Structure formats: C-alpha cells, structure tokens
C-alpha cells in the first residue's frame, strides 16, 4: 500500500530539515537489540545488550514489542499526514474546521493523542506550506488556516494566476454587460468569447470549458445572473450582474477596466460614467451607515474576541 520508504519518518518539530537516523523513524532505540535490523523472532542472544532477559523467549518478547511500537509510530505518522491533508482540503472551502470533524474523519481511535497529533500537523503546515493553524474559537474547538506568506501586491497576484485568468474573463463579461446597459444577451457573450479566440464548448487550457465556467460556476457563485428574456420565442436569455459582483466590485472599477482596454478615459462614455458616479455615491452612503451601526453594536457587546 504505502510505497514510500518510511525510514524518514517525521521531522522532529523545531528541527527543520533534520532527519532522524533511526530505523523506521524512531529517534530513540531503547535497547541495543533494536538498533539492529534483525527483527526475526527468536533472534537469540543480542551482543552487548544491557537487557536482563537474554533468553530466547525474552528476546522474542522484546522484538514483538519493538515491532508493535514501530507500527504504532508509523500509524501516528500516517494519521498526522492525513490530518494535514484533511485540513488543507477543508480550508480550501473556507469553512472553519471543528475538532469533532477531525476526530470523526481522520483521528478516530487515536483521539487521546489529539494534542500531539494536531501539534505535529501544525508544524508541518507551517514549515511545508506556510500556513498557521489557528484556534478560531476556543469554546467550540474550531480551527482555521492563516496564510503566513507575505501578502501579494495586486500585480503579483495577477501574475500568479490562481483565480486570475477566470476572474479576468469575468471582468470582461461584467464589462460587456455594463456597457450594454446592465444586461447582455447570451449570444453577445459567446460572440465576445469567439473574438477572444475561445469556443464556448471547446476545452480551453486556462478556463476548461468556457461555457460551463460562465453558465455554471459564475452563475452558481452569484457573480452573474442568467434570466430568460420575456416574450421571446424561441426563448432568449440574458446575463446581468449577480449579487456577488455588486458586492465585490463597483461599476466605476469595471468602467475603468473597460476604459483601459480601449486606451481611453472612463469619461469617454458619459452615460456609463454618470451611472458609475451615482453608484459610487450610493456605496459611500451605504458604507457610512454600516460603519455607524457597527460601532453602535460593538460598544454594546461584551467584548467577544474572534481571533
């Protein structure tokens, strides 16, 4: 099952890059007999052993114990590794992870060793991936991962991709929708894609299947809304900004993006510019209101610390 050489074992916390020299990752060899690779039962007398039981039976018992200890250690290592993977996958979904989930899915009956396991997992997460495992809520034992790598500049972020290309495509679509008066027919969106060199249903190495990305991902994530245009037959559909786009980006920003694309100023489109200005004013007002009410609530609350 496991193909990896297990002699490496876990790096000891605080000693990054250091390797244990022990067989199967054991850092300590309690008896001389265990430093030999001979595990066969009935190994007989061990030279130089300080152990009292030098009979065949005694040596066999020691060997069995040693094997069991090694197995337990391997199992512990594996559990730590599984917990690390579990935490990484869970964190991707951006939901805090509870201790009971960890016990249920990964730790199982090693529950008593939870503090040790989670400490090792945390060290791996820190050293290998640059994440800090933080206890988010002491009462409910929930954890999150915080990225300890330095935050990226905006242009660095774009370069490094991730969601970059997809969000770039989304921006193009939001721009198209905005410039066409806040809604764009489905056909117009596919037309724009074709001009960008993409076929809606053909696999693209950056976007996968663009049509799927747009119709499913973006719509499901509420970046776009997809509606039937009334009184059209055969039925036609249109896209407009979804509620999440309204939250995460502003008309002014999108207009700025479109303007840059065309190497012009936002004011070049007076209608859209006026609309964007009005939108900015609305947002400023909403923000001021929200801040005021938050301050009021904070002073009334009995200091609950989240982090």
């Amino acid at each position, binding site marked *: *099952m*496991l*193909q*990896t*050489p297990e*002699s*490496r*074992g*876990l*790096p000891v916390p605080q000693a*990054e*890059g250091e*390797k244990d*020299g*022990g*067989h199967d990752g054991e850092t300590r060899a309690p008896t001389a007999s265990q430093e030999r*690779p001979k595990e066969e039962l009935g190994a007989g007398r061990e030279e130089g052993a300080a152990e009292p039981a030098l009979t065949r039976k005694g040596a066999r018992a020691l060997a069995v114990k040693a094997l069991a200890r090694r197995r337990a250690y391997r199992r512990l*290592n*594996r559990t730590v*590794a*599984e917990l*690390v*993977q*579990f935490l*990484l*996958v*869970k964190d*991707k*979904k951006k939901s805090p992870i509870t201790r009971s989930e960890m016990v249920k*899915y990964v730790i199982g009956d090693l529950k008593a060793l939870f503090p040790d396991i989670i400490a090792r997992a945390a060290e*791996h997460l820190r*050293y*290998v*991936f*640059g994440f800090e495992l933080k206890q988010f809520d002491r009462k409910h034992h929930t954890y999150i991962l915080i*990225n300890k*790598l*330095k935050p*990226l500049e905006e242009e*660095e972020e774009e*370069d*490094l*991709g*991730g*969601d970059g290309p997809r969000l770039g495509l989304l921006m193009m679509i939001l721009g198209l929708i905005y410039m066409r008066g806040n809604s764009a027919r489905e056909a117009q969106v596919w037309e724009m894609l074709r001009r960008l*060199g*993409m*076929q809606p249903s*053909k*696999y*693209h*190495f950056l976007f*996968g*299947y663009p049509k*799927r*990305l747009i119709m*499913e*991902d973006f719509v499901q994530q509420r970046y776009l809304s997809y509606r039937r245009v009334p009184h059209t037959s055969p039925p036609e559909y249109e896209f407009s900004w979804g509620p999440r786009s309204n939250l995460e980006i502003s008309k002014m920003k999108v207009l700025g993006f479109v303007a840059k694309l065309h190497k012009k100023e936002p004011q070049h489109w007076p209608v859209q510019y006026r609309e964007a200005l009005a939108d900015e004013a609305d947002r400023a007002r909403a923000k001021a209101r929200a801040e005021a009410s938050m301050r009021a609530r904070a002073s009334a609350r009995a200091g609950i610390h989240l982090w």
Partner: protein
Amino acid sequence: MQSSTKRMGVMTDVHRRFLQLLMTHGVLEEWDVKRLQRHCYKVHDRNATVDKLEDFINNINSVLESLYIEIKRGVTEDDGRPIYALVNLATTSVSKMATDFAENELDLFRKALELIIDSETGFASSTNILNLVDQLKGKKMKKKEAEQVLQKFVQNKWLIEKEGEFTLHGRAILEMEQYIRETYPDAVKTCNICHSLLIQGQSCETCGIRMHLPCVAKYFQSNAEPRCPHCNDYWPHEIPEVFDPEKERESGISKPNKKPLRSRQR
C-alpha cells in the same frame, strides 16, 4: 537501513508559495508550472537563480515524503501535454475527493469510474451513468441532480466531458492510478509501451494490445510503416503527432480529440 544518503530538502517561501498555488489549481500544465515557478521566485527571492524545474520539484518532494504526498508529473492521454498535480502516495481510495463530496456523490463517481474502465473507448455515456442513479449509496439522488454532480466533477477536473460522454481527467489518473489498478485488476487496461494505466488509446485489431496516443506518437515517429510491436501486423490507425510545446502555445487553444490529430505526411 539506517541513514539514507539523500538529504531532505529545504523549504523556503518560494517553495511554499509554489505549493500553495499548485494546490489551488489542483492540476497544471507544464508551461503554467514553469511560469508559476518563475513568479514565485520573483515575489519571494528576486535575485536568486531559478532552479531547473525538475530539481525544484525533487527538492519539494523530498520534504513532502513524510506527509505521503508528492508532486507528480504525468501526460494527458489525448494529446500528450505534460501535467503536474499534488497526489497522495497512500492509496486510500478516492481520498482527495472524500472531503469535497457527499457519500452519494462519491458513489456516483465510483460508478462512472467503473463504466469508464470497462468501456472499450475509455468513455462512458452520460445516459449509462445516470441510469445507475438508483444504485447509489447514501441519500437518494435524482437524475437531474446527478447531471449537476457530473458537472461538478468536470469543474474540479476529475472527469472530462466530450459530446455527452465522460472519461477520466489526467488529474484523476495521476491521483488514482494505483487505487484503480488495485481495485479493478482484471478490467484495467495498460499501455504496451509505458506500462501505465490506460483509459484512452489505440489498440491492435489483431492481438489486442493497447497504446496511449502520445506513446503511439513517440513510438511510430518518422516510421513509414507502423507495425504492432507485439504481433507485427500493420498498425491500422492514424498516428498522432508528438506533442510540441512550442507549437501548442502558438495555436493558443488545446484541441482534445478522441481520434488522433492530423494525418501524417507520406
């Protein structure tokens, strides 16, 4: 035995950022991986010389070993593009998916996987998969819902869809090859050339051996009379072109095809 001569690598923020981003994507093509590597250096260690990709990845893998994961390199079955993914070394079934999907969804994947492995072409039709919806473990799933779940698999790069049929994404093959070979030892097909798991490929009509399309391309490259390596009979299929990264980028869009690409010049 005791100490191994290979030293465990050292992680810096360059490597950590690289790992984080590779994990975000799930799977990446080689040109994208190189680009990513360069940018990680640019962000975290501007003046350092960029390691050769192979060394860079080997360094990281030596650190990942104790976590039973590694960055694995593979090749897409349809046109031989090199891809990289972070995979589990311990075969615990569909482990990476297990935390992302519900029990019935995982079972749907398993059913699709079985159909794909059993099929002659490496593709399972949407209809055939959906017909198994009643047999799923866990919460009852309607066909409409199952269609969405299949799309989720496509989005997360576990399956590829072409014209209503599904096959395994390169990522799934990278991640699950060992699990598949252990779970379906009789049904599994392997490539006569590289001996890896084969889902899509060409087969000899006489003796039945199979080869991956990129393996066919390499093996028969500039061979005027391609013959089966096993039974020496004439190889009846179109020989695809060997993947050339320079050419790929110019055209801009990948062209995945069930059949091999262009016919050879004679």
